[in-house]
Structure formats: C-alpha cells, structure tokens
C-alpha cells in the first residue's frame, strides 16, 4: 500500500487503528493522525448538525453528536462539497435502536432532509408523514410549546416544499 492509501485508511478507520502508519511515518505521527481524524469526524458531524438542525434541537447536542458520529463512521463523504453530506441520515436515524421510543425523530429528519436538498432538482419536493409532523417541526424551530404535539400514524399529511421570491417554505397540501 502506498502512503496515501495508508493515511486515508487510518483517518477513516472506525476502530482508530493505525498500525500501517507506524511502519511508514516518522516518529511522532500519532498526534498528527489524531488531528486529521478529529478534523474529519467533526467537520462531517458539524455538517450534519447544519443540515439537520431540527433533529439536533430535538435530541440535544450530546445525543445528536453520538448518532452523527455513528453515521459518519458508517458513511463516507463522496462529494467534494461538504455541504452535500447527509444523504441517508434520515433513514439511518429511523433505524437506530436507541431512538425507537422517539418515533417523532424520523419525520423531523425527513423534513430537514427535504430542506437540505431544496436546490437538488432530482430530489422529491413533497413527502407523506404522520399527521402533526409539520406542526411539531415548526414548534421545535420556533421554540413554542411541543407538549401537545402528538403524531398520528393513522392520519398521514403531505408536506410540500414551495418557492416564492427565492424563499423556500413548507406547506401542507
């Protein structure tokens, strides 16, 4: 393996392994690798926080970072534009065992994903979610009372992304 492959693999290694670097780098490389790994992880975690702000608010920072870190370690970034990172996060968050007792998180993530992809013409522009999802999403973002916000799986609502005067907004259709 050449040194580019070795360094790239060491940065991405979920278990933090760096044995190959030991044979290829001058002494003292450990601090450098730690820097590169942390920069990689936290750049992408911060990007997820920017792209899924409602999920961040709903889970609070520590919990969000826990799941975001798990997502980053399982999903590489394929686009040079870091702001693109997060495809599949809404599906991922819905599958997390620890969040099974928080069924509202998945709809919130899907609405955040709708906004994240607002400039992507190939992305869907409306989604069907449990009734009350948009109201809950707005309540979290506007810091209003969410105590009476319950989602209704039996009564779905269609949420659409609209554009007017270069501004994006979400509506029920």
């Amino acid at each position, binding site marked *: 393996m050449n*040194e580019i492959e070795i360094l790239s693999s060491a940065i991405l290694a979920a278990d933090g392994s760096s044995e190959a670097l030991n044979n290829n780098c001058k002494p003292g490389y450990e601090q450098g690798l730690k820097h590169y790994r942390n920069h990689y992880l936290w750049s992408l975690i911060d990007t997820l926080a920017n792209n899924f702000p409602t999920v961040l608010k709903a889970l609070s920072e520590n919990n969000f970072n826990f799941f975001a870190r798990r997502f980053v370690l399982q999903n590489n970034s394929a686009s040079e534009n870091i702001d693109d990172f997060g495809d599949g996060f809404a599906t991922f968050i819905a599958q997390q065992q620890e969040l099974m007792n928080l069924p509202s998180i998945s709809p919130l993530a899907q609405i955040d994903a709708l906004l994240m992809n607002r400039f992507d013409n190939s992305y869907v522009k409306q989604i069907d979610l449990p009734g009350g999802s948009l109201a809950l999403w707005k309540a979290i973002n506007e810091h209003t009372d969410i105590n009476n916000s319950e989602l209704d799986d039996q009564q779905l609502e269609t949420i659409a992304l609209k554009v007017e005067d270069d501004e994006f907004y979400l509506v029920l259709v």
Partner: protein
Amino acid sequence: MSSNVKTGLSLRIEYLDDFLNNDHPIQHFEIIADNWLSPGPHHNKLEQLSGELHFHCVGMNLAGIDPLNKNYINKIKALSDKFKPTLISDHLCFQKHNNNCHHDLLPFAYNQKNLDRVIHRVDSVQQQLGQAIAIENLSYYLTFNTSSMTEADFLNQLCHATNSFILLDLNNIHINELNLKISIRQFLDEIEFKYVKEIHLAGANVGNDLIVDDHGADINEQVLELLQQCLPKMTNSCTVFYERDTDLPTFEHLLLQHKKMTEVIYE
C-alpha cells in the same frame, strides 16, 4: 523592496457587504472558489466589487491517486470564465482517496514517483483550465519515511516541469517548524523565488499538542518577519494575502491586519 509586491485580503461572504458599503483600501481579493460554485445573489455582489480577484481552490486533489475530477475542474473553469481571476491556486496535497473525500489537505511522501504523478496531474489541470496555476506549500502534522526530497525541492521541480507557480504560505512553514522541527531557514533557502507569485500570511491556533493552521488568529509576528526576509528575494510580481477563515473579527479589525501587513512591506 520590489515595487511589484501588492497586498490583499481573502474575502469571505460574511464581509462582502462591508466591502461594498464602506470605504477601504483593498484592491486585491482572494476567494475560496469552492464556496462560490453555485450562482446566487453573492455572485452579483462579487461582480460589483472593484479590484483584482484570485481563486484559491481546495478540491483539485493535485497529489491524489484517484482520477482528477474533471467535473469539478470544469466548474472552476466556468467560474473563472465569469470572474476572470488573475491567478488560480490549490494545494500540494491529496484531498480524496478511493472516492472518499476527506475535506482536508493531507500530506504525502515527497519522492520521484509521486513527483512524476503530480507533474502529470498539474499538466492536465492547467490544460483543462487553460492557464497556469499556483501550488501552495502545506502545513502538515506527520511526515513519511518514504520521502526522499524536501517539500521545497518537490515544488521547485514541479513548477519547472509544468510552468506553474508557487503560492508560498509563510504561516505553514512556521507551523511545520514548530510542530515537526522542519527548518524554516532551509525551506526559504531552497525554494526558488522565481516561481513565487503569491504569498499567504495567517495566524494559527496554539493548542496543547499541536499548532493548527486554522486561519483563526491575527498575523503572527514571526510570520511577518519571514515576510520581511522574503521581500528582497522576490523577482516576480507577487500578491500577499492575509487569510482569516475562523473566529472572524470585525471588518475594521480585518482592515487593521491588512494595514499591519502593508506597513511591513512598504516600510
């Protein structure tokens, strides 16, 4: 001091309105081109800004092994056709491997095999862009046993082979000496200033273990001294930019940093 040394500031979107709405002496700007690839109101504002523009890229992956991303280079070319920058630059590093983007500037070994590959890649990029580029020396946090030459020697040979230029980042060589004991003196003695077309100054984040090149501080005094040492060696027209990307100060403070830099150059 060469009268061909100009000064400027890296331009972040956060300061765009400040530059448009206030009197200021800045005549040279550099943008991170990757942040401007999608059109929008910020493009209209940039068109209103008077002054010379440089593009600084972070996605060419010049030292990488993955095929060059021609789609990305085309986007840079399209932006260049629109704004006609004086110079386009990127870094002597790899940024992506096996289609995994690291969103970082990563080091590699300086040896003949890698030099041959990077020469080929720089030639391809310049051909696609239709102009020569400048290549920046790196701040890095580890080094490889398989390096058989210095970074300065690698850059000199690369520029000689490809007719490209050097973007000399003085903050980076300062950081490399502090973190890895890589001699500033040796670097500046070795680098061929006939290739230097642009210089970067910045400040770094002094952490517990490492000094990190985060462009989040005022210009380091030692880096200003390095600039003074370089000025007599400059043979080309050159622009010196102050980079500030994090912990953004007020607009007025930014202008003060530019003034500080200019006073050193013109004293």
